[in-house]
């Protein structure tokens, strides 16, 4: 019943000239998404991926198990001195992420261009 989570990695450069690793997710983010979310993140080179940008623009459903995976990623990123940002969340999930306190550790932006402009 749950839609498989797809993940893709893009390397971009911010207008300020910083390399940004974009993790693009598609489908549901739920308990079954561990490989797509954490596995994709853990496969990144921690030395070259200092700025990580999560793209949720093609994600329709995120449940508390999926949020927990994002938090686990944030913990690992903090331990590796990486900075994580996100864009493309719906208004509802922006509210949910704010309610649980994720915004303290991952800046949220409405769009990729607004995120890149700030990095």
């Amino acid at each position: 019943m749950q839609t498989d989570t797809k993940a893709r990695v893009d390397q971009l450069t911010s207008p300020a000239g910083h390399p940004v690793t974009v993790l693009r997710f598609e489908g549901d983010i739920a308990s079954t998404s561990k490989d797509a979310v954490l596995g994709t993140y853990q496969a990144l080179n921690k030395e070259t991926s200092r700025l990580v940008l999560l793209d949720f623009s093609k994600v329709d459903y995120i449940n508390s198990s999926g949020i927990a995976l994002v938090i686990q990623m944030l913990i690992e990123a903090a331990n590796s001195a990486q900075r994580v940002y996100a864009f493309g969340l719906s208004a509802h999930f922006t509210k949910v992420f704010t309610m649980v306190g994720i915004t303290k550790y991952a800046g949220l932006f409405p769009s990729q261009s607004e995120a890149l402009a700030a990095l």
Partner: protein
Amino acid sequence: MMASKPTSVEVRLPSRLGYEKVAMSTAAAVAKLMGFREDRVEDLKTAVAEACINAIEHGNRLNEGLSVGVVLSADADRLEVKVIDDGKGMKGLPRKPDMDRKMHGEEDPRGMGMFLIQALVDEAEWVAGANGKSSYVRLVIRLDKDSE
């Protein structure tokens, strides 16, 4: 728009993760018929999904021989949703997640479902069933006519 006569809709789900989306979609359809704003429909969808996930995982312990009952009762100005499982009921009340503690490994990254339910609806109560069965969570979301 739904008539003001009380209306009931029931769904029975297998205790399999993912099927919470069936209850979520049903609740959203009923709420839209009642005239709820889109943002309130989204709140309800997440609350119902989390209630069903708790029922599947913790109430019925993923036993596919057991089902989760979802009863939606619509009145003129409120929608009540009961999510019923065969567990002993939830112990304690929802606690607000502490993101700092989670980040420092002092709190489990998971365990936000009950908090989200309580935060997103107007009323939420967890009721333990007699004889340790038929426990349920009851959610209420109100149609605020002034702001709809």
